[in-house]
């Protein structure tokens, strides 16, 4: 099984490297992006991975700042999840830039009215907090083994990190929410929905990682149970937000809002909403997590978590793409004909491959840093 996984990872790495090379040499001309749907797969995966990261961080801070015992054994894993996922998310948005080598201009020439400008600084602070936590936690099995001073520093990092992590995903949601030209994004619920789905998907990914990397004893089962209940609660909250949103749009009947929602629920990619996001990504896992009988089946529990992690991909694509499909003026589409003046977007091969490359890179990073964090310096000290 392990060998098979490494073979799959190697294939992913090779095809992904080709995609990234193509992105680096050819540019955005080989994407399927248009001037109508100008943000595509990469932006969807950017918010996806940032959500997984922020969710993981919130859970790690429950351990190191709030001292929630049930999660203690997955604290380290959660920090690493947060770090690797933010690295993947930021790489996704980095390759989405027309001029990626100019990314530093965000810091040198910021715009005080731009949330993206502020967010860039929040992301930077977040990465520093995560690097600090990783360094503090490296070489120890759990935070209890840390010398008191280091433990205090870790607690400070975990505490300061909470508002920063919230800022990471709330702020990313706010980037979308402030865009009045896209009615589906332009609501006060958007940043909150980003937060809820971050905790939901981050918890689910941590369950999957714990199923792979954690010791399988009684404590593990209890920890998984705790996370399943947390995930169930956030799924319910997330569904409630979606329902509130749909209700307001339905009663409002405002033409452009209704059009955006029609696109989301009954457009050409309706299955991404109904099947991937709502059925497989929310309702099935919710049934598993909330039923003690189903939850007691370990394989089903892990499958439920995996479904949330995958289902959220559909959720993210649904946030980014349908909102752009309805152009600012319908007549605009007929004004001139060109492949970039269309609302039809389906990611090009290069977008898929380069995304695969980033995911493969993230997995390698996870494996390498995880083994570095779990090195045993005391052993070498004993042997010498």
């Amino acid at each position: 099984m392990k060998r098979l996984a490494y073979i799959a990872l190697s294939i992913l790495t090779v095809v992904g490297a080709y995609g990234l090379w193509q992105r680096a040499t050819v540019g955005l001309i080989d994407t399927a992006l248009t001037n109508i749907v100008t943000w595509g797969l990469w932006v969807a995966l950017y918010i996806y991975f940032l959500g997984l990261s922020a969710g993981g961080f919130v859970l790690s801070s429950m351990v190191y700042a709030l001292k929630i015992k049930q999660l203690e054994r997955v604290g380290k894993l959660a920090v690493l999840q947060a770090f690797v996922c933010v690295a993947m998310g930021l790489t996704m948005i980095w390759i989405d830039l027309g001029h990626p080598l100019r990314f530093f201009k965000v810091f040198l020439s910021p715009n005080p009215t731009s949330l993206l400008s502020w967010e860039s600084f929040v992301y930077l602070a977040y990465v520093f907090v995560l690097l600090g936590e990783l360094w503090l936690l490296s070489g120890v099995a759990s935070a209890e083994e840390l010398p008191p001073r280091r433990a205090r520093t870790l607690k400070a990092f975990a505490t300061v990190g909470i508002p920063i992590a919230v800022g990471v995903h709330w702020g990313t949601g706010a980037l979308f929410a402030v865009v009045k030209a896209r009615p589906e994004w332009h609501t006060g619920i958007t940043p909150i929905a980003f937060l809820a789905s971050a905790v939901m998907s981050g918890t689910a990914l941590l369950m999957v990682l714990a199923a792979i990397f954690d010791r399988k004893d009684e404590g593990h089962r209890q920890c998984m149970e705790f996370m399943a209940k947390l995930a169930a609660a956030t799924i319910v909250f997330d569904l409630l937000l979606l329902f509130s949103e749909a209700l307001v749009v339905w009663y409002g009947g405002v033409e452009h809002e209704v059009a955006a929602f029609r696109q989301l629920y009954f457009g050409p990619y309706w299955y991404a909403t109904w099947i991937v996001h709502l059925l497989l990504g929310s309702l099935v896992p919710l049934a598993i997590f909330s039923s003690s009988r189903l939850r007691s089946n370990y394989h089903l529990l892990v499958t439920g978590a995996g479904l949330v992690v995958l289902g959220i991909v559909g959720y993210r694509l649904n946030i980014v793409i349908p909102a752009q499909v309805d152009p600012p003026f319908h007549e605009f589409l007929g004004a001139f004909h060109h492949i970039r003046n269309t609302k039809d977007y389906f990611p090009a091969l290069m977008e898929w491959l380069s995304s695969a490359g980033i995911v493969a890179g993230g997995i390698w990073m996870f494996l390498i840093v995880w083994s570095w964090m779990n090195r045993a310096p005391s052993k070498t000290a004993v042997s010498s």
Partner: protein
Amino acid sequence: METTRREFLVGAGAGATIATMSGCSSSAKGGDPAKRYGMVIDLEKCIGCNTCSVACKAENHTPPGVSYMVVMEEEIGEYPYVKRRFVPRPCMQCEQPSCTMVCPTSATYTRDDGVTAIDYDKCIGCRYCITACPYGARSFDFGHDYPTACAGPTDPAAGEVLASRQPAAYAAAPSPEYGENRPRAPGQSPVNNVRKCHFCLHRVERGMLPACASACPGRAIHFGDMNDRESIVYRLRDPEHPDEVVFPNFPNRHVMQLKKETGNDPAVYYLT
């Protein structure tokens, strides 16, 4: 009160951040603050010939997929009672633009004369402004060119040019935008940047009309300084009620702005 080293560092950091954030927006923006360039488009005169779009392309050397001025066509009614309406749409050069607010690098900004411009060297190509513009007035330059047709049908090099993605002579000719005369080359700005109509500033600053206004055979596009009493687009506006606008040179005409409800306050008005 004694300041500790930590307090000093925190204070210095916060001060530097605020200074950087505020400094970036106070840089020289160009343009005469006494002027406010605007356009008045007479929809009764527009015949939907697209001359403005073609003139704009030829003037600014915009690549395929990028059109600063487009003519939107709308068909109203049912046969036999049908009417076609044409709405030329340049950039609205909004008083309260959505695009400049969201740009993370201040690459797009409103000049003192009201024209929203782009600094191609600052633009990182994130396309946030494209999503934010309620008028769809911004396009990303993906790097397409007009190679074969512009190299000439008998040019044997045309096929080669297409394959190498090198722009042919016409496309490679420098664009006069912002008076910069940038030659077009793969991967070089404005390729991979966001682009938009800028009221042909390079022409206006030399006393000429924007290409679209100059070329319009129906004289439907009027351009000028809305603060200038001598200008055809001289605008009377009550500062207390900016919604109430009168153009003395177009008496008894109904004046409208597109998507007024956005609060962007476009400087492009339509006479209907």
